[in-house]
């Protein structure tokens, strides 16, 4: 009869689904399609798949092995590998805390949009009226109703990062709700998490399949799909494509945060994680590709819709100015009419020449968007033009929510597991209290992202909190396992667990190829940062109705530096502290032995 042994997953399927739920997140939906578009459409799959096999899979395998072997969270696991390496675990926890704090804000936004979908007309479908009820609000007219809903009614964004504004009540409420949902899912540990992931892992796929079916049947979707799948192989010569592929794989799989170690630590000692690692990584990449199919059909629909609206607008302009019959100008002879009218009535034409737009489908498709812009603006714009838009809106934002919460479970597990491993904390606090306090802390800090300038801080965290630091952590991880701990020892551990040694392919990647690759990425990031000058951000200008580029003020740059330094410093700091401690112990031991003899 065991009193409280380490909790574990009820069955291996829960572990796999937890990993899938964690790895398959918003990045698959809003970053990968963007990269595809930027780097030559279908051709991007080549560097992506190569990086998956050469970098993603082996590192995923590595982290699962460590977690399952050491049966502790990241801090304990790395301390067990080598006492000097405990800092890696702490760095992972620090990064996970940053991630948890800002990532849940996305869930808050998803909740906000979800709740606003239960209306007759979607609130982002129409511009609100100005006070005299004859025109629309100017900010909305200059941009678009979806932009306006996002920037003004959701974020109530200020014009620069210095302008704090107050906490937006709606956002704050949604953030509190998001944290309560996360708490509900993790408060019983693997027992509750294991059941929740059945849903968070599978529901997004259901929605994506429904969306795919609807998406490809939308008018103009094929334009988008054609655009995506015509590979422009010349783009592969650009090193940026390969670098983006490498970083995307790394971050998409969620390596270096300690979540995988935490999840794997609840496994049975003999769980065959090798097969599971391959399965989860492949599912993650397949989901990215699948999500791009959906996204590109939506893109195609939206671009075609905008293109045809543009043509309609031009038609209307011409027939109104020249009083021609309604159906005289059609889409295909618009250009002929324009040149004819310009030639026949040059004066009259000159009065409207400033309003003539060149309607171009290609340029509509070329507008590549990523991140929150894609998820909350582009998609909602497409949804408002679909029939039954409320239904599609609810489905879509529920899916975003599931993806976000699934990833949050991993983040929170990465923080909670090391905390629960600490005997001190477990003795003094109940599991629920500890987790509750952590959620409360993160929620309170996260409230700063619900202020009027919150989105600018969010972007800072999104770009800097978990990018460079993770590269560093992953690099130290590989070096620690391969060279400090010893590849031979590691091999033996794996053999004990799954019954056979890892194939030589894995060993070569771990010891040689991955470190080289990551050092390369490192150098690129540093070079990019040095050459980039002052970091800038996109600020929303309410008067112009669009974003303008502004430079980060010094305090924002200081925060960026702090984000990078706090996590990376842990590694050398802990190594130093351990070194000093060991020296003290050695001095004491030698003193005892000399006095004894």
């Amino acid at each position, binding site marked *: 009869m065991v009193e409280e042994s380490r909790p574990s997953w009820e069955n291996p399927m829960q572990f796999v689904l937890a990993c899938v739920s964690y790895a398959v997140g918003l990045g698959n939906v809003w970053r990968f399609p963007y990269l595809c578009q930027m780097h030559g459409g279908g051709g991007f799959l080549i560097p992506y798949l190569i990086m998956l096999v050469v970098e993603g899979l082996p590192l995923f395998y590595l982290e699962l092995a460590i977690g399952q072997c050491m049966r502790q969270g990241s801090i304990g696991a790395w301390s067990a590998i080598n006492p000097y390496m405990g800092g890696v675990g702490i760095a992972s926890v620090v990064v996970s805390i940053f991630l948890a704090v800002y990532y849940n804000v996305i869930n808050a936004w998803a909740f906000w949009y979800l*709740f606003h979908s*239960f209306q007759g007309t979607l609130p982002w479908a129409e511009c*609100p009226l100005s006070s005299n009820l004859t025109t629309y609000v100017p900010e909305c007219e200059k941009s678009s109703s979806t932009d306006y809903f996002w920037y003004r009614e959701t974020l109530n964004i200020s014009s620069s990062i210095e302008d704090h504004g107050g906490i937006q009540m709606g956002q704050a409420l949604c953030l509190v709700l998001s944290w309560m949902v996360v708490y509900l899912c993790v408060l019983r540990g693997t027992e509750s998490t294991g059941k929740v992931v059945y849903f968070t892992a599978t529901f997004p796929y259901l929605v994506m399949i429904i969306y795919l079916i609807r998406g490809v049947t939308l008018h103009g979707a094929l334009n988008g799909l054609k655009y995506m799948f015509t590979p422009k192989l010349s783009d592969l010569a650009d090193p940026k494509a390969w670098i983006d592929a490498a970083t995307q794989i790394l971050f998409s799989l969620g390596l270096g945060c300690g979540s995988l170690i935490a999840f794997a630590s609840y496994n049975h000692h003999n769980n065959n994680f090798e097969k599971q690692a391959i399965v989860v990584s492949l599912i993650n990449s397949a989901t990215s590709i699948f999500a791009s199919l959906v996204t590109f059909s939506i893109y195609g629909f939206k671009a075609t819709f905008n293109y045809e609206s543009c043509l309609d607008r031009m038609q209307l302009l011409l027939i109104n100015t020249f*009083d*021609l019959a309604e159906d005289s100008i059609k889409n295909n002879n618009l250009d002929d009419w324009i040149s004819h009218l310009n030639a026949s009535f040059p004066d009259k034409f000159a009065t409207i020449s400033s309003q003539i737009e060149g309607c171009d489908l290609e340029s509509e498709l070329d507008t590549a968007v990523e991140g929150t812009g894609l998820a909350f603006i582009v998609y909602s714009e497409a949804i408002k033009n679909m029939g039954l838009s409320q239904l599609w809106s609810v489905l879509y934002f529920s899916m975003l929510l599931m993806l976000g919460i699934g990833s949050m479970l991993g983040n929170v597990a990465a923080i909670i597991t090391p905390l629960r491993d600490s*005997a001190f904390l477990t003795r003094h606090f109940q599991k629920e209290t500890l987790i509750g306090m952590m959620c409360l802390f993160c929620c309170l800090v996260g409230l700063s992202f619900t202020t009027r300038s919150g989105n600018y801080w969010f972007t800072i965290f999104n770009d800097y909190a978990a990018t460079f630091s993770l590269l560093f952590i992953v690099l130290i991880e590989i070096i620690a396992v391969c060279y400090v701990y010893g590849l031979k020892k590691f091999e033996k*551990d794996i053999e004990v667990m799954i019954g056979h040694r890892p194939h030589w392919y894995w060993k070569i990647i771990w010891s040689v190829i991955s470190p080289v690759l990551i050092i390369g990425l490192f150098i690129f990031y540093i070079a990019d940062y040095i050459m980039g000058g002052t970091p800038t951000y996109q600020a929303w200008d309410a008067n112009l109705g669009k974003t303008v580029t502004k430079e980060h003020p010094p305090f924002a740059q200081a925060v960026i530096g702090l984000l990078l330094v706090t996590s990376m410093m842990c590694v050398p700091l802990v190594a130093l502290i351990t070194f000093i401690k060991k020296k003290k112990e050695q001095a004491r031991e030698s003193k005892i032995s000399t006095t004894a003899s």
Partner: protein
Amino acid sequence: MLARVLLALSLVPALAQALCQPDGQDAYKVRLSIKTALGANAYEWNESEQFLFRATLAFAMRKYTGQETFNVSSVIVCDETPRVSFWFVVTNPNDTATLIPKNAVEEAIRLSRNRINSAFLLSDKTLQFLGIPPTLAPPSQPSLPVWLIVFGVVMGIVTTGILALIIIGFIQRKKKEKTIEDEDEEEKQERIMENGISCETLEGKDGVNNGAYSHDEDRLTQL
């Protein structure tokens, strides 16, 4: 006599034409987009439709001014185009040479806009009076925003769930403590000495050395 009547008759349309000038001070331009609004059910714009328009406008003037002297003849139309757009003016029924000022016409149209639109199965967008902006319908604002209601429901469910789980956990812990107290002292002793995974050993993390990994014993295995 006949000649004078004929002259007068021929002058009337000429006079009417003189009154109705495109870009005139009291003239309004109307634009209809019938095909856009009705698609396949679009009707042809002809003299009869024009008659209906003038009658509807006369009705609007009657309603606005309260004078029942306005007639179809009070409304003069000119400059019709294939677009289906034209200019119109409204003459004073008491003095056909003068026109009703622009503001009055505008107010009259605003008042009866809905009726005018319905007569032609069109809307504010497809039956345009250039210069008279349509009063856009304000979006319906329910007393409590809908999103708060949904938020309240979800929040309630989540709070109940959290409380339920916490209480269940609490009860389970109390039960476990009771069963431990009821156990035999000897049994407890046995459990501590067992070499299985028992909580006490897990607590002393620093002291537990997993044999597979710690190689400090190398120096002890000299035998």
